[in-house]
């Protein structure tokens, strides 16, 4: 994962918190500092996802998992993932 991805997420979370305040804050019930921190904390998670859209690593992971059928009775998920990872590493070398 790129180093900039969590940093980008922190910024997006701030913007998302601002948007939540603009859309949902009631006039006579302003968010307290603690409540704003809670919204910022929870906004970080979807913001991380948005930031990950601009990072090639999660896409590669998705492509890797798409190659695996986890519903083959005899196969173990750990072994299946390890096998695909090994194949990808061999493909690179």
């Amino acid at each position, binding site marked *: 994962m790129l180093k900039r991805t969590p940093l980008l997420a922190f910024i997006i979370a701030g913007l*998302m918190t601002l948007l*939540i305040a603009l859309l*949902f804050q009631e006039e006579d*019930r302003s*968010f307290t500092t*603690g*409540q704003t921190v*809670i*919204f910022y904390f*929870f*906004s*970080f*998670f*979807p*913001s*991380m*996802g*948005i930031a*990950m*859209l601009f*990072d090639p*690593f*999660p*896409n590669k*992971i*998705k*492509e*890797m*998992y*798409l190659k695996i059928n*986890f*519903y*083959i*009775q005899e196969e173990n*998920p*750990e072994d299946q*993932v390890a096998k695909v990872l090994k194949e990808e590493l061999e493909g690179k070398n």
Partner: protein
Amino acid sequence: MQLGHVAVALTIASFAPELTGGQVEALSLESILVALFAHEFPNFDGLVIMAKLAPKKFHCTWSHSLIVGFLAGLITWFINPAWGYIFWASIFLHYLADMPSSVGLPLFMPFSYKRYTFNLWADTGYFGWVSFVGTYQQAWTWILEGGAYVVLMIRLYQLKIWPFV
């Protein structure tokens, strides 16, 4: 969807008065238990697989078909109509929450075995560490599951529930 199911279930429980015509209070113990049970109901197929009563491929089949959801809700409705409405909302939203996964849901089983998916993230199996880690290495799981928790926090604020008193 994995951890996000809890947030979706609690958000449904927050709408209990609207769903039941005021018979059940928002986020009461009753609404939470019914919503959580109904929302997790389709994933009980994982328990059946772990108990070795069904093969792995049983996951996301019958338990994720609209007709099973409707019938399970109907049984609940006969026990308590208010619970039935919460059950239907919870189970159908479970299907919607699972549709971004590449595994796809056979919504019209047993009439059609075609699987429907939004294909936003790759399926990582039904249980275990590999499934958990794989899910949260993908962008859209963070967006949608994290988003579900943001929506839940907004509902807590609107209902003046701690920590938004």
